[in-house]
């Protein structure tokens, strides 16, 4: 490799007195002094959460108001710190979810373990789990820091569906094809 000797200019007299630099610095800080503060007064003012933010994982419902999770447990297996615990079970009769076979009886995410990696969201075949914009979790006991299914569904709400997988499958079935 070629060696490029760097020419360092000797400091001028003005630079060696430091004074012009100090004056310039004082001017810079003076401008900041009169500028309004950048600070967000946190509990009163909240930051705007950008799209794609990875907050706490939540369970969502589809636009028909049905739970989406089919309890395949992929997220449980992929979760690196093993924060998710799912107890699968049959979907109860008349719950409006007859199109699927299974659903979670219990779905717990331990927020003391979760590392907000987003792998659960990435792996979910049903797009049922999303890391949304909740960033402020608190509790006074360990048990309080575990989000149960109700809480997860409440936090998740309904997200617009991009695929309507089950509607399309139903339409295809009604049109006569076994597979779509």
């Amino acid at each position, binding site marked *: 490799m070629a060696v490029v000797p760097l020419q360092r200019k000797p400091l001028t007299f003005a630079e060696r*007195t430091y004074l012009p630099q*100090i004056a310039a*610095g*004082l001017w*810079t*800080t*003076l401008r*900041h*002094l009169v*500028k*309004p*503060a*950048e*600070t967000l*007064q946190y509990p009163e003012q909240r930051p705007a959460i950008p799209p794609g933010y990875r907050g706490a994982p939540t369970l969502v419902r589809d636009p028909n108001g049905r739970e989406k999770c089919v309890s395949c447990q992929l997220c449980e297996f992929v979760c690196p710190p093993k924060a998710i615990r799912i107890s699968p079970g049959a979907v109860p009769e008349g719950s409006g979810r007859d199109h699927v076979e299974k659903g979670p009886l219990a779905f717990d995410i331990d927020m003391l373990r979760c590392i907000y990696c987003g792998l659960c969201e990435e792996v979910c075949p049903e797009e049922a789990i999303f890391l949304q914009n909740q960033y402020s979790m608190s509790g006074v006991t360990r048990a309080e820091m575990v989000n149960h299914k109700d809480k997860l569904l409440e936090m998740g709400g309904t997200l617009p569906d991009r695929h309507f997988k089950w509607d399309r499958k139903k339409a295809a079935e009604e049109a006569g094809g076994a597979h779509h």
Partner: protein
Amino acid sequence: MDVFLNLPVLVQVALKGLAVICVMFPIAGACSMAERKVSAWIQSRPGPNRTILPVFRWVPVVGPFLQKLGAFQLAADGLKFLFKEEIVPGQVNRLYFILAPVIAMIPALSTVTFVPFGASIDHAGRVFPLMLANVDVGLLAVFAVASLGIYSIILAGWASNSKYPFLGAMRASAQLVSYELSLTLSVLPVFLWINAPGTAGTMSLAKAVEFQSQAGFWGGAWFIITMPVSALVFIIALFAETNRQPFDMPESESDLVGGFHTEYGAFKWALFFVAEYSNMIVGSGVFVLLFLGGWNPIPWVSLATLAGWLGIAGHPVLVGAISILIFIGKILAMLFFFMWVRWTVPRFRYDQVMEIGWKKLLPLAIANLVVYAIGIALIQK
């Protein structure tokens, strides 16, 4: 006034001392809050603005304003220092350890007495300064007593019996000794000029102000205009003497933890703090008196002229109050400048501090003195 002068001398002295303490402690506290606020504003932050006494929450405009200004934070910090546990580490030399902050207070509080903080005009039209101890050696006394401050730092560093305070103390002593020379040399031209041959010699700070309030172009010019190099050397040396950034070698947190006060906590630490701010205030006061015209409002307009304009020349009390306000205003501006520089300029390295002190500032001060001595000799014959 007469009632006061008729009291026994000891009572007078005690009252004056009490006055100094009652004035300097809150001012130093306010300075620490101002420091936090200025640093916050310079860094585009609001600074401490949350603490509030519940009572004040119901006061409409004033309460929130004081809260924003951090006034209650100041009180809370002061109280905290009073009630904190006084920890004396096991390895220290107890007597000297406790003595050091006490000694720090001595120069900090006693130099104030030599600084005239205002002037008034009596009915005969004579201007007389307002000060606690009107001694003719003025500036010399300030320098002499202020240089005692170094003993407290050395004592603190030595008694702490641990390496960072010790290093801090060593640096402090080296630094203060080097910059004291330039500090003293830089003010000599001023007093050469004041003490023209044939007049009574004086080192009084009030005389220096009197000199800047004369009539005419050269009479009314402040010394910062006629002696800019002196003022520059003085202010740089002052920064070093008061251990302020960029010369805060003795405490530089990043390499010495806390410097000489590493082992101190609670009220003993607060005493060092108050001492530092008092030194800053006195230093600013001396600079204002020597170079910024003291209690004269603007260059070429003396206090007497201003009083004439306002039509209050016959009221000694009013004139006195105005002069004190002007003087305090200038000191506050100086203090702001100190803080402004602190949050702008990074700390010098220790060898740079020594190089600036001995190789640059001292020759500059000597050259300045020689030039002015010759010039003054030619003018005053």
